[in-house]
């Protein structure tokens, strides 16, 4: 059954490609997406009942063949993937994209679902590598829109990282003789610890690169900031593509349980989050602001997953979903705004409330989600991440959330003021509004029914305590006050703009990215091999 989830989007893609791409076809695409989403929901319900669904591809029982596995976590992410592609398909209903766009988007969906469902090391390699190629073509397929250079850096850097993964697969195969993750977990647990250090460091380097953590985060903003790349692609890159790497991170931490280092990734996650917010608040480009803010949230998720506590773990999983929802919403809003004002410079976009109340309210909803305001999904997930953390980590996370609030204030500042002559008017398409509002309402629903949803998606029946909730609201209000003061006296001040310009100019070239991959590998090897 699970094979169809991988194959269906690809088959649909080919059929839509063969018949010409007019508006009817885009409507068919949306209907197909809705059907896939329905089946994904059915899969999740089935997994809740049965615990785990296995499909043996080619009917080779045992470890000979390739196994697809849907557990609760995988089924939830399949549902998220289908849902986000549905929303993006609705958003792009009126865009005159070429046929290739829809072909690649659907293939991308199939590949991502494959990564979530696969239980085979080598399959993950193939799917991840092909997904990289698909994204590389998606961001520059159109001759009028091409920006080859950033695409080339993206593709080559990802290929370098995936070689580390392939080397790791070789070691795992040498040690265990299997490529199945479940069997490898059992066999690796019986082996001496020092044998696992090198494969663990190799594989984690690749996964950490794909998850865009420090110091290898720079490819993600680079790709998302590519001028005139389709909005949907930038949105799904931080909404889903990076999440697939974090998903693999969770899986591989289990596979390499005897050597898995949580301290290393706790520190790396926190540093990533801090660097992410500092970079984000310095940006003036609306998409780069959101891209660096994604880096910050990824750091938070990685840190939460590395805290040894079931609450933090479940909170991080839920934060992956929350972050996907509001970040895709904000990226799509950014796409609409840059169309409305003809620029992506946040200093020139002013007075959204005066021009378009509808989109203004959507921005407010999504920003409340990202800052973790009560009744919104960010609140639930951040509450659970922080509830398992100790004092030092907790204080750092409050600081990171203060940074996120600063990002939100900077984004929200565009709502006010008077629009200048750069305003060119809005395209009249209702479908993008529908998509954005659907996501914002999901953020809201994810906050109100947060505990129920966490139980439904991840089988994590945790409750928020009332006093903890009140404490949270007090900290959050204090953070908002501090954030507003800091924004007024530091960020709005013209004297400091040169400093932020210097932060914006920080940029790794291709060689720098390779050095950072090598450095991460050496650090991971040293920490796992000698320090723990």
């Amino acid at each position, binding site marked *: 059954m699970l094979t169809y989830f991988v194959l269906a989007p690809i088959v649909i893609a080919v059929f839509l490609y063969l018949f010409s791409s007019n508006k009817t076809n885009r409507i068919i695409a949306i209907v197909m997406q809705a059907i896939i989403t329905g089946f994904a929901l059915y899969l999740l319900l089935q997994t809740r009942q049965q615990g785990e669904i296995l499909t043996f591809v080619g009917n080779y029982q045992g470890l000979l063949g390739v196994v697809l596995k849907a557990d609760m976590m995988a089924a939830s992410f399949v549902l998220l993937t289908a849902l986000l592609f549905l929303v993006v398909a609705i958003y792009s209903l009126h865009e005159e994209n070429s046929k290739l766009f829809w072909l690649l988007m659907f293939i991308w969906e199939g590949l991502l679902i494959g990564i979530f469902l696969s239980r085979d090391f080598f399959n993950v390699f193939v799917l991840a590598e092909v997904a990289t190629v698909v994204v590389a073509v998606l961001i520059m397929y159109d001759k009028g829109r091409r920006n080859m250079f950033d695409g080339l850096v993206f593709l080559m850097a990802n290929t*370098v990282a995936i070689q580390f993964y392939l080397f790791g697969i070789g070691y795992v195969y040498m040690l265990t003789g299997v490529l199945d993750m479940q069997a490898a977990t059992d066999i690796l647990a019986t082996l001496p610890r020092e044998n696992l250090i090198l494969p663990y460091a190799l594989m984690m380097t690749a996964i950490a690169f794909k998850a865009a953590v420090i110091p290898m985060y720079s490819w993600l903003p680079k790709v998302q900031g590519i*001028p005139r790349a389709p909005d949907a692609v930038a949105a799904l890159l931080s909404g889903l593509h990076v999440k697939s790497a974090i998903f693999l991170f969770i899986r591989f931490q289990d596979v390499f349980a005897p050597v898995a280092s949580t301290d290393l990734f706790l520190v790396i996650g926190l540093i990533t989050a801090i660097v992410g917010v500092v970079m984000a608040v310095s940006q003036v480009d609306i998409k780069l602001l959101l891209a660096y803010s994604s880096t910050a949230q990824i750091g938070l998720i990685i840190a939460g997953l590395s805290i040894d506590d079931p609450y933090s773990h479940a909170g991080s999983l839920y934060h992956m979903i929350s972050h996907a929802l509001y970040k895709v919403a904000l990226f799509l809003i950014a796409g609409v705004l840059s169309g409305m004002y003809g620029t992506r410079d946040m200093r020139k976009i002013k007075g959204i409330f005066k021009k378009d109340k509808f989109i203004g309210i959507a921005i407010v909803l999504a920003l409340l989600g990202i800052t973790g305001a009560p009744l919104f999904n960010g609140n639930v997930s951040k509450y659970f991440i922080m509830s398992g953390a100790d004092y030092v980590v907790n204080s750092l996370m409050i600081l990171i959330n203060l940074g996120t609030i600063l990002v939100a204030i900077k984004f929200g500042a565009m709502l006010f003021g008077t629009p200048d002559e750069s305003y060119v008017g809005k395209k009249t398409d209702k479908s993008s509004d529908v998509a954005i509002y659907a996501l914002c309402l999901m953020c809201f629903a994810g906050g109100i029914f947060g505990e129920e949803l966490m139980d439904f998606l991840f089988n994590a029946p945790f409750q928020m305590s009332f006093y903890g909730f009140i404490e949270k609201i007090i900290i959050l209000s204090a953070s908002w006050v501090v954030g507003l003061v800091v924004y007024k006296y530091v960020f709005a001040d013209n004297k400091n703009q040169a400093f932020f310009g210097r932060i914006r100019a920080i940029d790794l070239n291709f060689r720098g990215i390779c050095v950072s991959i090598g450095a991460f590998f050496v650090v991971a090897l040293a920490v796992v091999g000698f320090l723990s």
Partner: protein
Amino acid sequence: MRMMEIIPIIVFFMGMFGLMFSKNIIKSVACLVLMEMAVIVFILGLSYRAGVLPPIGRGLQYNLDGIADPLPQALMITAIIIGLAVTAIDFTMIIHLVRKHKSTDWNEVKALSRESFDKC
């Protein structure tokens, strides 16, 4: 550590050093291919190890001693094809960049492509 393990590791990190220090785009691609080849040689080297039986063919009446494990070969065929496709896409982009900017230097091409972008 066996020879089949040490040599690929050395070649792999030679490729990595090349990527860190080469200023030329073509050389970078060559180093990337070198890394790929090191991994492929390493995994192909896993095919035969003394005392390890291949996972298939046990029902046949052949003596399986000295028979190589076919799985790494099958995997590496896939990896080679993917590597070929990616290298081809890399070169497609590089040819485009070189025709446009008349340079194969990372820094020069970066500066020129930023410049040409600012114009449009």
